[in-house]
Structures are given as C-alpha cells and as structure tokens.
C-alpha cells in the first residue's frame, strides 16, 4: 500500500519524460543525437529504488517509449534496454547516495549502455537503421548531452521519489 503514491509519481514522471522527449528535445535536431530525458528519469529513479526497482521502472518506461507515438521500432526493444540500464544503475544506489560525481558517472554509463545495447539489438534483429557506424558516431553525443542535462533532472527526480515514500508511512 505504501508504494502506491510513489508508483503514481513514477508513472507521471515517466510519461512526462516521454512527451518532453518527443515534443521538445527530438525536434531540436541537435548535432549527433538527441538527449534522452527518459533515460535520466529512469537512472534517477533507479538510484533511489535500487536494482530491482530500477529494472521494473526501466522495463515499463521502455515499454512506454516503445508504444507512444511516433515510435516505429519493435515493441519491447527499449523495454529491454532500459530494464538493464535501470538494473545496472540501481546496483550503485548505496554508493551514489552522497556522491554527485558517482551519480553522474552512473548516468553516463547508463547512456552508453542504452545506446550500445539498442544498437546491438538492431544488429541482432537486422534492423537496417542501426549500423555499427551510426552507433559509434552518436555514442559520444548521447553521453555528453545526457551528462549535461543530468544535474538539472537527476537530483530533482531523486528528491521527489525520496519524499514520496515517507509521506505515506506517516499516515
């Protein structure tokens, strides 16, 4: 029962991130690759929730990204990628509790894992869109944009997620 408001918060955050990604960041057409706000939200939540919570959040966030327009790839692809990214970032949740630098490193690692894994899946599924070259070319850009954006997103999401729980336990 205590988890419900937090679950609602997570759902709202994830959907907001999807919409902002599609409506704000991707149309900007920045050189290299667009920043991925959803990944930042997943990473921040994983830093609070730990590996299992991170994996579950990542799975459903990825599923949302797979289904919401204008997505046009196989459903489940981002679910897999974000699930793993959420799990890996969640492993660091004790260490990253007090260290901003470690949180940023975790975000950078998550961005790298997401891009590489998405690309690798493209290879497995023989997706003509994703070649090794395009992945390598966009990788530094995704990491750079995500790390730049992280200080504005991650602490905010983390504090929201932390605050959501005690409110309920007090009731």
């Amino acid at each position, binding site marked *: 029962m205590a988890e419900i408001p937090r679950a609602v918060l997570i759902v709202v955050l994830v959907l907001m991130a999807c919409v902002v990604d599609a409506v704000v960041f991707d*149309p900007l057409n920045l050189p290299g690759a667009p920043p*991925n706000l959803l990944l930042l939200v997943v990473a921040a939540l994983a830093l609070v929730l730990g590996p299992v919570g991170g994996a579950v959040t990542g799975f459903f966030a990825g599923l949302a990204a797979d289904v919401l*327009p204008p997505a046009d*790839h196989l459903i489940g692809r981002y*679910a897999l990628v974000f699930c793993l990214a959420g799990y890996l970032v969640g492993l660091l949740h004790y260490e990253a509790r007090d260290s901003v630098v470690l949180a940023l490193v975790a975000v950078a690692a998550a961005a790298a894992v997401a891009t590489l894994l998405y690309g690798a899946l493209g290879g497995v599924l023989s997706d003509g*869109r994703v070649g090794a070259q*395009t992945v390598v070319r966009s990788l530094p850009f995704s990491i750079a944009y995500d790390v730049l954006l992280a200080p504005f997103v991650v602490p905010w999401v983390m504090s929201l997620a932390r605050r959501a729980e005690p409110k309920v336990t007090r009731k």
Partner: protein
Amino acid sequence: MLVLLLLTAFTLITLDYRAQGGGVFGAARRTASSIFGPVERLAADVVRPVRHGIQAVGSIGSNHKKVNDLQRQISALQQQARQQPFDAQRVKELDQLLHVSAVGQYKLLPAQVIAVSATDGFEWTATIDAGAKDGLKPNMTVLNGDGLVGRMKTVGSSTSTVLLAIDPQFNVGVRLPSGQMGVVSGHGRAPMTLLLLDPVARVKAGDGLVTQGSQNQTPFVWGVPVGSVTSATVPLSGDVQSGSVKPYVDFSSLDLVGVVVEPPRTDPRGALLQPPVPTVTATATATATATVTVAPTFSASSSVSPSGTARTSSSRTPTAKPTVKPTVSPTPKPTITPSTSPSPTPTTSGSP
C-alpha cells in the same frame, strides 16, 4: 526478477517481429497514438514558442541574412500580387486551351508536426496532428512546400505517425530529368543516396528528382520533388550509377506539412521542380509560345526568378504552363492546393 523482465522484453520483440506491425501490437500502437496524440499535441502547442526560441539562438547569424532575403522576396511578391488579376485571367484562358488543369494539383490535408521520434537519432519519424478522423490512411504521401516529406505509417484517431524520407528504412522510386528511373533511400543525418536502375542511364550533379509514382498512387503519388543530385559516381560500363541527393525539404525544421488525400489526375512530371524541367507535349508548346509573345506580362507571374530567364527558357522549350499552374487554382474549402513550384528556397546545386 531482472531475468523475468528481460525475457518478457525478448518475447515482446519476437512477437512484434512476427506480427509485422499488425495484430495486438498494431492495436496497442494505435491506441497509444489515440490517447497520447492529444497530450503531445497540447504539449507541442505549449512549448512551440520555447522551441522556436531555442532554435533561433542557434541561428542568430543566419537570421540577419534571412531577413534580407525575405524582404527582397516580399517586394518581389508584392509586385506579383499586383499582376495577379491579370495573370489569373490569362491562366484561365491558357487552361482552357491546354486542357491540363489537373497538372500538379494534389488535394492536401494540412497538418502540423507536433513531435519527432525519440530514438537516439536512429529512427526518423514524426507525429502530425491529423488522423483517421480526418480521413487519413496508412501509406499516404506527405509533402510540404519544398517537396517530399515522407509517408504515413501508423494512423491514430486524431494523430498519426509519418516515416520521414531520411529514415534509413525509407525508399522511393524517382524519375530523372531524362525520364530514367532510380531509387532514393534515406540515411538519417547522412545525405540520401540515389541508385539508378538502368545501366545506361546517367545522372549529373544538379539534376532534380521527382517521385515516380507507385501503383495506384500508394504510397507515393507522382511528381513530388524529392531532391537534387549533389554528386554522382563514374561507374564502369555495365554498372549502374549511384549518387548522393540533397533533399529539398529541411528536415531539421519541419512544421506544416500536407497529406495527399487525392493524387493529381495526370502526372505532373517535373512541373513542380524548382527550376522547371521542360516536359510539355508538342501541341502545348506551340500554344504556350504564341500566348507568351502576345502577353509579355505573363511569364513573370509566378516565379521569383527574373522574367528574363523565364522568357529565354520558354522560347527554347516553353514551359510557361507548369510554372504558373499551381499558384492560381480554385481551392475547395476543406483541403488546400499547394503552391509547390514557386517556393523560393535557393537550392545550392553544383552547376551555376
């Protein structure tokens, strides 16, 4: 837990791969589109000024030049507007003479781009604010004032997804000025590529390409400008030639697009290319030349280029008709007929 979720994801991928966009997954996508389309639409309306602001910061330098260009265009257009009534009359007369009033007239449904794909730059799709309610169906051609934008993919009730022409999964049959055929494919940020079909066909930098038109005009109607050839390989004899293509459409600033709900009755051929490619039948040629010489104001009517050049080109192989056609035409209320031809965006082609 992790393993379970990963397995689920794999299962979903496999099932969707098998279903090929149909079945439960297609339905899920359409439902998501119906529910989240309006949300994205609202969000797009809210953030559009901000987005334009951010985009403007990146282009402060070029804005000054743009203002000058636009001012020059305005004065040219004002001049044209004053001639408009006279030209309209001329056009009507020519139409009756030539019996080609359908050339280049697509029935369009205008739509606004509200979101662009969120897949780390691998996938080039866009959401537009029109859907099944507006009579849209998958595999319709999408274009804007500059040329081909893409084709309809998933159609929700009030929003739908467009596969953009620069998506790596996008291929379109095109026709060269010589009448030969080729295939243009998207490559994301890299230039589009052209592959000719006939080993003896040749193409050179600066050639404009228009869509060939698919069977039953689905997914591509004919005669939509695609792009201009920027470079071409020198193939060994017996090999097909390939080249790279710069699309006419600027995909970094997509805004208003049109979905072709009714194709033109006759093939407009190259009529909508920016420097009009002369492709008029012999009978039309004679008539057009005659009229142009009688009425000297005519040739300046719709192209921004100085009337002198238009005149010289028309005396060689007269194409007065395609230049004028799309601007002045009766427009049915709910749909618009675009003025694709006189779009004054300067296409930098290799040849002067």
